[in-house]
């Protein structure tokens, strides 16, 4: 089965892409009046003679939202996968480690300063995530090679970082009298509805991140075996770890600045695919990307359809699913 790693990558990519497209179309077709699958397909195929209002809703509202959900889900799942490989800890994830919180602080500061979305908010958000990352990796000792803290202490450090970031965010919000507060609060809870269509092109920035992470999939396998073993097999550990950390933070902060705090996607998705596919990152990177995208589209669909009126921020759904799984994993890892 090893001879066909390229074929397995291809097969998984095709299967999960098909799933992603199917789920995407269902999500586009679903609305308060039920799911109109064939009608939606007809409109998307260009035969929009039937109903102009529906066509507008699909093109202007639902499609951008599904695309955003796909990018956010894929990036967050990939972010979780990378941090789990680098910290060699299956519970690591951008949200749990506080890195999402750090970029949220940056993003809010930029919003309060009325900076433009791009590059202003993105840069602030990236800076915030890097600061938290520096702190958390210093705790983990990843850039030094020796571990200062045990695995669980690292998580605790992340959780505290997260709590600290939450406090700073609340402080910033309570100091503001701005009309933006409502908007910021909704964004914070992880809401895909607050995004404007003009922000979609910003998402293209994460595509090169995907590519680089995929190219580093094999070195990530070796990093699982430990830094020295990886180095002994020809990996330039320092450079690769730094590159992965920076690329991943950039990706996460772009996503956070658009969609707010959506947690646990990076925990749930890599965990499922590790169970299904094993530990090879050459399979896990495309699988988490596409699977994470499908997963968040589904969660967002639930967020839209569950309440009898209005909708939930999707971050609430992902936390309701992810937090219990985190506890299960924590218990299982102890034994």
């Amino acid at each position: 089965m090893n001879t066909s790693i390229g074929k397995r990558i291809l097969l998984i990519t095709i299967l999960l892409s098909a799933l992603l497209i199917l789920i995407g179309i269902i999500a586009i077709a679903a609305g308060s009046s039920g799911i109109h699958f064939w009608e939606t397909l007809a409109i998307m195929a260009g035969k929009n003679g039937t109903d102009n209002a529906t066509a507008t809703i699909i093109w202007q509202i639902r499609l951008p939202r599904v695309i955003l959900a796909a990018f956010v889900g894929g990036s967050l799942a990939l972010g979780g996968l990378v941090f789990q490989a680098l910290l060699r800890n299956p519970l690591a994830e951008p949200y749990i480690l506080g890195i999402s919180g750090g970029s949220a602080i940056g993003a809010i500061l930029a919003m309060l300063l009325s900076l433009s979305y791009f590059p202003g908010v993105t840069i602030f958000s990236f800076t915030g995530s890097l600061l938290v990352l520096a702190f958390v990796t210093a705790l983990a000792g990843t850039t030094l090679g020796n571990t200062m803290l045990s695995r669980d202490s690292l998580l605790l450090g992340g959780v505290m970082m997260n709590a600290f970031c939450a406090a700073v965010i609340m402080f910033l919000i309570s100091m503001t009298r701005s009309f933006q507060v409502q908007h910021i609060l909704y964004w914070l809870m992880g809401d895909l509805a607050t995004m404007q269509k003009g922000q979609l092109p910003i998402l293209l920035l994460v595509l090169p991140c995907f590519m680089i992470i995929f190219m580093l999939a094999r070195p990530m396998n070796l990093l699982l075996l430990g830094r020295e073993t990886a180095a002994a097999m020809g990996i330039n550990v320092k450079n690769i770890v730094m590159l992965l950390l920076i690329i991943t933070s950039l990706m996460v902060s772009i996503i956070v600045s658009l969609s707010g705090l959506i947690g646990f996607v990076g925990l749930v998705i890599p965990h499922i695919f590790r169970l299904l596919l094993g530990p090879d990152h050459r399979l896990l990177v495309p699988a988490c990307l596409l699977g994470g995208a499908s997963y968040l589209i589904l969660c967002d669909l639930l967020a839209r359809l569950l309440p009898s009126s209005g909708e939930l921020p999707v971050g609430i759904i992902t936390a309701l699913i992810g937090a219990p799984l985190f506890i299960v994993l924590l218990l299982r890892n102890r034994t």
Partner: protein
Amino acid sequence: MSFSVSAGEFFVIIGPNGAGKTSLLKVLSGLLKAQKGSVAIKDKNILHYRRRNLSKIMAIVPQHIEVGFPFTVAETVIMGRTPHLGLLGMEGKYDFSVSEDAMKFTGVAHLADRKLFQLSGGELQRAIIARAICQEPEIILLDEPTTALDPAHQLKIMDLMEKFRRENGTTIIMVSHDLNLASMYGDRLLLLKNGRVAKTGTPGAVLQKKTLEESYGCRMHVDESPLGQVVRVTPIPDKYFPNQDKKNT
């Protein structure tokens, strides 16, 4: 400290706990920078090699092996091809044939689809040695490869290394606590004490009663092994000398 190892030599580094054997091995492999002095491979300073090129020349069998992630034996062994792969890191036919030969050589081919954590100590060690062989190195460094193994498995590992060396002319540098294995397999030994070279030379020259007792701090008996032409070392517990104070060391 200054010493050199010739190509194709079986070189064993011995010395008491904390003498710096593992650190020396890490310096030799370029994983640790020497505070003073330098290491040269083929007359070129080790720090001037790119990590990737160094790994084509030198493989390491570490003391501690991470088995926490469920990689199979085959997946683990072929990781040894890393320094030889292109940008995308996809293995080709040649890589798979090298890895299969390596698994056959160390006798783990039948375990190819087993996960690492399902292996016994001896099987795990042979899988890791197969990974090192898979790198097609000119030098293999081993850090106490036999410590956790029973005598039969110890000999199996050592015979494997000796056979590989004879067939391929590979240089073997091994750290060991087992003075008798060192004596039986080593062409030359290096005795390390407090980070310094206490002695280098043939097993017969290094494994001498006085030298060993001074370095290790316990009584030693050194004689010729019943195998002939090989020095045998027997550490002697104090209880065999009930009426004497512990010898000054």
